[in-house]
């Protein structure tokens, strides 16, 4: 292409400056701080049993919450796009609430609801299911904060999908299940995956809503961001930075393949 759209130089300049100021510089500072620790210090922190357990809890709970959100978010988006019912606008607005609510408020509310004495926790406790102060509770909190991502990525794509496409599939002999599996889900797949990735990333870094419901039992319900906070409170900034870099690496490890898959699916259309 010999012709370029005008304004490329200027807009690229603005983008690079902004990204540097907002993302690159803080992250570099984080890495820089962590490098003040020697190699064996890194190993000691990252391979510590408590650290490893926290990473496991963070990772598994985030994955579970993102999976739950991908499924439920798609269902919510489906309802919001495909049906007309009273209160639909209110429901639509409610989806964004987890964005707006201070996460600590959400955390305390969830904890009191799901604790063994809470409205929802008490009946479950009688069945022997504990939610608060277990990984299940962490997952619930992460599902709460990540839900808007899953809904808001799928919703516009679903709106763009004409209902005629479903009618066409039906008239060609597909039953409802085949229509969903072969026509609707493939069209939504990139969006669902994007929602999953965003919800997962949000879950990994989430702190405020989790600390209350998790109970923070070392080795069982302790998450990485909490460890980071603890190191900071002990004025051990380099140690905290090492944990931060570890989380960063972990996010990249999962988000890069997700993005790659997403662009491949997009191209496939």
């Amino acid at each position, binding site marked *: 292409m010999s012709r370029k759209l005008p304004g490329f130089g200027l807009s690229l300049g603005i983008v690079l400056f902004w990204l540097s100021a907002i993302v690159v510089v803080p992250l570099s500072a984080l890495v820089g701080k962590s490098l003040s620790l020697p190699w064996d210090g890194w190993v000691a922190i990252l391979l510590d049993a408590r650290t490893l357990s926290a990473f496991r809890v963070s990772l598994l709970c985030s994955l579970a919450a993102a999976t739950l959100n991908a499924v439920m978010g798609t269902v919510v988006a489906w309802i919001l796009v495909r049906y007309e019912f009273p209160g639909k606008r209110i429901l639509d607005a409610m989806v964004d609430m987890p964005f707006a609510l201070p996460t600590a408020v959400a955390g305390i509310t969830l904890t009191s609801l799901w604790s063994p004495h809470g409205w929802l926790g008490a009946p479950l406790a009688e069945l022997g299911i504990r939610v608060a102060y277990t990984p299940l509770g962490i997952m619930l909190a992460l599902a709460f904060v990540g839900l808007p991502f899953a809904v808001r990525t799928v919703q516009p794509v679903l709106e763009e999908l*004409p209902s*005629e*496409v479903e009618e*066409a599939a*039906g*008239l*060609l002999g*597909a039953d409802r299940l085949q229509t969903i599996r072969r026509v609707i889900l493939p069209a939504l797949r990139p969006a669902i995956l994007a929602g999953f990735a965003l919800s997962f990333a949000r879950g990994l870094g989430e702190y405020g809503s989790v600390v209350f419901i998790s109970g923070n039992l070392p080795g069982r319900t302790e998450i990485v961001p909490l460890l980071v906070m603890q190191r900071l409170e002990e004025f051990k900034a380099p140690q905290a930075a090492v944990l931060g870099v570890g989380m960063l690496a972990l996010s990249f490890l999962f988000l890069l393949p997700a993005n790659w898959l997403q662009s491949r699916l997009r191209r496939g*259309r």
Partner: protein
Amino acid sequence: MSISIKGLNKHFGRYHALRDVDLAIPDGELVALLGPSGGGKTTLLRTIAGLESPDSGQILFEGRDAALQRPQERGVGFVFQHYALFRHMTVFENIAFGLRVKPKHERPSEEEIQSKVGELLKLIQLDWISDRYPDQLSGGQRQRVALARALAPKPRFLLLDEPFGALDTKVRKELRRWLRELHDELGMTSLFVTHDQDEALELADRVVVMMEGRVAQVGTPDEVYDRPATPEVFQFLGNVNLFHGRVAEGGFLHHAQATTGTDAALAFVRPHELEVERFASSDSSVPAVLTHAYALGPKVRLELRRKDNGSPMEAELTRDRYRNLGLVAGDSLWVTPTNLRVFCSDEDVVI
């Protein structure tokens, strides 16, 4: 397959979309549902397909009640106005869809699917782009893929909703001819919706004119064009000049002096059925002034204004006739209808 429709009614909220529609479509015909937008054509088509359920009335496929059959079971091939292709599938997979979703015991083998889809791709002359995605096709190509996809599961009849509506004139003409040939080759009962009278008259064996949710007229293209059943149908089918007058002594009087005779009557004359002359040739000639003339291919269209009541008229001449008359805007002329279609309250007469 023959389709027969009895007393069909459909409401959308307070809007009465279909009013007592009765219609019989014989096996193997290519039928046009013609009418202005909002006339109920698409609703009728979608109801036949089973995409809408009627409030009352019956649809019979070869005598069997369609209400007992789900859309999938009706054997309908449906082509949507905006194609509704599956965007994440190649052309090949789009066409193969109807074969792949068949229940296991009816589903053809992979080789059969390959050869069946190959045949259809040849039929629509697109076998060279079978691995493209719908986004990479032109409008005409997409429409042909949509048609092949509808034909793949061997439907018993074909329904097309404004099949050429979104295409430009040239492609539309080509596709029209191609669809006619295809229909003659396959002999499948086909029903298409259009608001373009040229398309309906050119393509169809039979034209169903729909207005305000009712069937206004059913007939061959010639019948519908030459003998419109109502003034509304007449006005919808092409340009028309309107004369007010009365019927007296078996003739239509459109002059102001027609004070005797029957009730008020309306007469319609097509532009090519108006004789244009320098002098009055009969009692029924009307004086007019030429306001504008322009060429339309081999014809010349004249815009005239009646001297007696100032109403506008349109006439159509051959280029030769136009040249021989040596017309210029502002000329005073006499206009004589050669063929009048008169609608007089409830009876109508051709004079």
